[in-house]
C-alpha cells in the first residue's frame, strides 16, 4: 500500500511527516475525503477548523489503534476502528463546540462526519494497525498536517478569488468570482490545485531523474467521503 512500508530501513519521523504532506497528501495525492474538502472550504477559517479537528482525530486514533492492535481480532477490526474514531471525534466535537462556538456553527456538521472520513480509517488500516507507536504517531501527524494544509490552500484560494477576502478580512471590493464559492467552484478549485501539485511533483521528479524510482503517478482511490 504505502511506499514507506516496503522492506528497508525504517522511515524517520521527518520522512513520515513529509510523506503525509507531499508524497501521499490525502487530498491532492490520495484523493481521499474530497467531500469535506469541497464542502467546508468556502473560507480559510472553516478549512482551518476542520483541518485541526481531523489532525487531532487522526493522531489520537492512530496512537490508540497502535496501542491496542494486539487485542483486536482481525475479523472485527473495522468496527473497532470506527468506534475508536467515534470516541475521539465526540471528544473533539464537544471541545470545538465549547471553545469556538461561532466557527463551529458553520462546520459542526462536518466535524461529526469525521467518523466516516476515508483518510482516517485508511491510515489506521494500512499503517497504525501494523506499525509500532512512534511511527504511527508521526504518520498520523503527517497525514493530519497534509489534510490541514490542503484545506487551508483550497480555502485560501476560494476565499481570495471567490469572496475577495482572507480569513474574513475584505481585501478586494465586492465578490470577484462568485463562481468559486459555489459547490461547482469547489471542484474546480481542487482540480486546479491538484494539477498544480502534480506539476510541481513532475518537475521535482524530473530534477532527480534516475536517482529514485518513480512514485505512483496518478491519485489513488476515490471511495469514501
Amino acid at each position, binding site marked *: 500500500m504505502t511506499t514507506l512500508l516496503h522492506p528497508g530501513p525504517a522511515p524517520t519521523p521527518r520522512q513520515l511527516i513529509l510523506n503525509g504532506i507531499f508524497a501521499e497528501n490525502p487530498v491532492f495525492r490520495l484523493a481521499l475525503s474530497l467531500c469535506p474538502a469541497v464542502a467546508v472550504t468556502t473560507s480559510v477559517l472553516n478549512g482551518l477548523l476542520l483541518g485541526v479537528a481531523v489532525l487531532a482525530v487522526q493522531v489520537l486514533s492512530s496512537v490508540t489503534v497502535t496501542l491496542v492492535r494486539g487485542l483486536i481480532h482481525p475479523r472485527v477490526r473495522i468496527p473497532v476502528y470506527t468506534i475508536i474514531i467515534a470516541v475521539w471525534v465526540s471528544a473533539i466535537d464537544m471541545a470545538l463546540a465549547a471553545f469556538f462556538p461561532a466557527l463551529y456553527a458553520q462546520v459542526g456538521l462536518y466535524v461529526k462526519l469525521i467518523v466516516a472520513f476515508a483518510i482516517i480509517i485508511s491510515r489506521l488500516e494500512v499503517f497504525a494497525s501494523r506499525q509500532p507507536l512512534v511511527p504511527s504517531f508521526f504518520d498520523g501527524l503527517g497525514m493530519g498536517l497534509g489534510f490541514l494544509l490542503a484545506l487551508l490552500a483550497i480555502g485560501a484560494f476560494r476565499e481570495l478569488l471567490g469572496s475577495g477576502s482572507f480569513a474574513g478580512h475584505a481585501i478586494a471590493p465586492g465578490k470577484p*468570482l*462568485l*463562481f468559486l464559492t*459555489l459547490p*461547482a*467552484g469547489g471542484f*474546480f478549485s481542487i482540480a486546479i490545485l491538484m494539477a498544480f501539485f502534480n506539476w510541481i511533483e513532475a518537475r521535482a521528479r524530473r530534477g532527480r531523474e534516475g536517482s529514485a524510482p518513480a512514485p505512483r503517478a496518478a491519485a489513488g482511490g476515490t471511495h469514501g467521503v
Partner: protein
Amino acid sequence: MSEIPAARPRPFVVTPGPHLRVSETTSSIMWWVNASLAPAALWGVVVFGPRAFAVIIASMAGAVAAEWVGTAAMRRRSTVADGSAACTGLLLALTLPPLLPAWAAFLGGAFATLFGKVIFGGLGYNLFNPALIGRAFLMASFPVAMTSGWSNPRPWFGPHLDAVTTPTPLAALKEYGLEAAARLISGPGGVTGLALGFRPGSIGEVSVLLVALGAGVMLARGIIHLTIPLSVFAGTALITSFSGAPLLHLLGGGLWLGAFYMATDYVTSPAMRSGQVVFGLLIGVLTGVIRLWGGYPEGICYAILIANAVVPALNLWFRPRRVVAMGSPS
C-alpha cells in the same frame, strides 16, 4: 555519356490512400462559421453601440489568449490559427448582454476555451459546447451583470440616451406576464421588430433574420444540416404551444442562435441522424421547460449543456446499421 532525364509527368503515381480529397478542413469550416456570424454580430454593434463591440472583442481576445496559453503550457501544437478559439469567443459574446463589463467577457472567453476545451485535450475532445461553458460560468460568477445588462436598442430618431437597461421580451414574459411582453415588443414595430432585431436581448440573438442568413450560408455550404435545428424548433414549439405565446418563444430568445450554431457543433452532437433528432427534441423541450417553469427566462444554454451530456449515450443507442451481419465472411 548518360544524362539524368528532365523531369516530366510520370504516367503512374503510386501513393497510399486516401485518394479523394476535398479542400475543406477544420480550419476552413471554422472560419466560414465565423464569417457567417459576422452579420449578426455587426447588427448587435449597430443596435447596441460600442459597448457591444467591446464585449465581442474582449470575449474573442480572452478565448484566443487562453487557447494560446493553454496549448503552450501543455506543450501541444498551437491550434490558435484554426479559428476554433475565435469561434468560441465570438459565439460566447453573441450570447452575452451588451452592457456586461468587457473584462468579464474576457474572463468568460478564457474560461470557455481553457475549461471547456483545452483541459479535455483540445478541439474534438470536449464533451460540452465551450461557448456555453463560458456563459454558464459567467452566469454563476456575475449573476447581476448577466441578468441586468440588457439595453434598449439605440434610438436612431430621437433624443440620445447613453444606455437604458430594460428587460428582454422573455424576461418581461417571465416577470410580468404576457401583456408586458406584448407591450415591450409592440413598441417599434411589434413582431416585425422582433424579427428584424430592434429589441433588447443578447448581442447576437436580437436579429433572427441575420442569424437565419448566416445559418443559410452554412446550410448552403453543407457545414450544418437542418436535422438538429428543426428538431430543436419542434421541441420548443411543442412545449410552448400551450403557453399562449409560442411565437414569442420561438422568436424572442436565443433559440435561433443556439439551434443553428451551438446545438449543431460537430464535437458535441450525436453522429447519427436518428440520434440527432432525439438530441434536438431534447434541447427544444428542455428549453421550453426551463422558460415556462424554471428559474430563468431563457433556457437554451442549459438545455444544450444538459443534452451535450447525453450525447455519449445517444451515440451508443443510435448506431449505424451493419450491412453485413456479424460473423459472416466478408
